């Protein structure tokens, strides 16, 4: 399970450094460094997330009621996921009882709208050029405008689905990006009747487009089945939320983790148990943490989250069209499929599922007039977990007796996938780059592996004061004279 890890670290002497910077068609900024020798043999491959946030510190000292609005500024692509996760946390901190059903439905609607629009953006706008035109196509052909030009209907599906997801978010929160909805114990508005009807009327078209998207992917995938199945694939554990009966869950639920063969690592774990089940490791070369399943240890415990993890981890999706597609998918690819590129297939099935869910949620006119939950005494600690488009998203907050935040820990989907992404690009490097003269199209193979995870790179580095850091002093010839390291606990040591 850790085959690619041999490429994590190499001695620099005599090696040439190849850098992919920035990684394109992903959200946020990242870079990949590859060390190769004179014979183009690969010695080291690393994914670096080079942006820095700091929200875990920004929120300290702020009133807890501000959290849903503050933390959604982590990202312009998936702000709703952070908004909803923080909304659940402020329910707990504010002492809210259970949300009335229609109120929870409004939050779910916003959340699922986000899943839909983000998945559509990811597959159609960012990833589809690699699949439609080939990873080795000329760079100027590997973009969404070429999809518009050559595959008009595919582009149209993507644009329409993305716009519909954005419209759902805007109907709930007032804006397509960075709107507001969740407040402690409820939501700040209902859905206008006219908007509800308008969105409902679009559901049949969106279902059709979502199914067309699946067929587009299946065709591309089948064109070179053996290669596509193997591309960047390294078996790993999976983690996601499920309902108590194993049905897929995006908004709430319990944690479930499985080994690559499907064996259960744990199941039914409430959100607060993440602290016992997940440990965050740090590595001196990355700003981003490396979480792992505590009971399996750091070497064997890395895991992946996201659409493919969710689909293999759950027992069912709970909507008819998407469940039929999931069954067909798992029947063809295997019950615990691990293929990296199949992540897109799972993503598109979730697009269909999200569209069905949105139709179900909009069907209830009670969402036009939501009620608030009963409020009780404040609580000092809250853990909230949701499934964001890219995977499991964990928010934990501490609050003092004045209602001010005094601690925060966020583990975002990209962080959960950190080791998995590194394993994937090392596998691609081993299989497809090793021994070859590195060309732009070949390097795009590495980027294709990263795009399969659709990392929300911009929100993955935020732990100001906690991130590991190494400072080295080198002479003119590049020899290290001294180095000091700050570890994840803030301790300064000489490396």
């Amino acid at each position, binding site marked *: 399970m850790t085959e690619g890890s041999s490429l994590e670290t190499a001695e620099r002497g005599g090696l040439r450094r190849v850098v992919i910077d920035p990684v394109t068609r992903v959200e946020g900024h990242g870079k990949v460094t590859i060390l190769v020798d004179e014979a183009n043999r690969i010695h080291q491959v690393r994914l670096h997330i080079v942006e820095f946030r700091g929200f875990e510190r920004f929120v300290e000292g702020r009133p807890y009621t501000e959290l849903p609005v503050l933390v959604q500024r982590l990202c312009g692509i998936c702000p709703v996921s952070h908004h909803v996760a923080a909304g659940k946390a402020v329910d707990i901190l504010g002492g809210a009882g259970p949300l009335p059903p229609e109120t929870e439905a409004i939050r779910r609607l916003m959340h699922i709208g986000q899943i839909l629009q983000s998945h559509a953006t990811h597959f159609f706008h960012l990833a589809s050029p690699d699949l439609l035109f080939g990873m080795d196509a000329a760079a100027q052909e590997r973009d969404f405008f070429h999809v518009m*030009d050559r595959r008009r209907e595919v582009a149209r599906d993507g644009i329409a689905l993305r716009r519909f997801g954005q419209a759902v978010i805007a109907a709930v929160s007032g804006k397509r990006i960075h709107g507001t909805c969740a407040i402690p114990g409820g939501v700040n508005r209902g859905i206008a009747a006219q908007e509800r009807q308008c969105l409902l009327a679009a559901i049949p078209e969106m279902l059709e487009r979502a199914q067309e998207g699946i067929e587009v992917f299946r065709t591309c995938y089948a064109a070179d089945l053996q290669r596509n199945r193997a591309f960047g694939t390294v078996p790993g554990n999976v983690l996601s939320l499920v309902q108590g009966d194993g049905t897929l869950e995006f908004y709430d639920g319990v944690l479930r983790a499985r080994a690559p063969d499907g064996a259960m690592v744990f199941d039914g774990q409430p959100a607060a148990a993440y602290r016992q089940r997940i440990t965050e490791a740090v590595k001196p070369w990355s700003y981003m943490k490396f979480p792992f399943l505590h009971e399996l240890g750091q070497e064997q415990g890395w895991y992946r989250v996201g659409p493919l993890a969710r689909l293999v981890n759950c027992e069912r999706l709970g909507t008819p069209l998407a469940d039929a597609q999931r069954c067909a998918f798992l029947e063809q690819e295997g019950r615990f499929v691990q293929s990296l590129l199949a992540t897109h297939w799972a993503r598109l099935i979730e697009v269909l599922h999200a569209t069905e869910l949105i139709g179900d949620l909009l069907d209830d006119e009670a969402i036009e007039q939501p009620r608030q939950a009963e409020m009780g005494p404040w609580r000092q600690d809250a853990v909230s977990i949701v499934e964001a488009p890219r995977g499991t998203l964990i928010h934990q907050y501490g609050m003092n007796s004045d209602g001010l935040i005094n601690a925060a820990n966020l583990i975002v989907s990209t962080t959960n996938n950190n080791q998995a992404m590194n394993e994937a690009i090392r596998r691609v490097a081993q299989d497809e780059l090793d021994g070859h003269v590195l060309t732009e199209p070949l390097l795009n193979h590495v980027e294709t592996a990263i795009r399969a995870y659709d990392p929300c790179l911009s929100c993955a580095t935020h732990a100001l004061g906690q991130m590991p850091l190494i400072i080295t002093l080198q002479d003119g010839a590049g020899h290290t004279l001294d180095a000091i390291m700050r570890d994840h606990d803030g301790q300064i040591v000489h490396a």
Partner: protein
Amino acid sequence: MSTVALLALGNPWRGDDALGLRAAAAARQRAPHSIELRTQHLLGPEDVLIMEDAAVALFVDASLQEEGAFRLSRIAAAEQDSVLRHGPSPAQALAWAGLVLERVPPAFLLAIHGMAFEAAAGLSRQAAMHLEKALDFLDALLAEPRAEHWITLCGSSP
């Protein structure tokens, strides 16, 4: 095809950059049935869909370049360009419409003269006056939403 696809551009938080958005909001109040409206900070591919059945497309934006209060001009689709810029132009959006919709409606840009674009500022006094004049002109446009008529009004810069 009786509608006007109205794409209003701007940032409501940056002073006179809100001119396009304010004009669009007023237009919706005055002629709610003859326009399909979409507001954006920046144009994106999904914005082209409102042009599908439009008789004319009208982009409304603030501009520093004008000499008068506003100016209407005819715009055409840009040459095809595979680069997604941070702020795609209306001409770029028209090019996308050509690709995705297989039609580009007759399109115009109503540029309203803004003076100050500072963060967290309201409309400047002069821009507010420009907006009033532009709204009267917009009323006239929407009263007769035909490209042939609008072409005769291009270059207006009171």
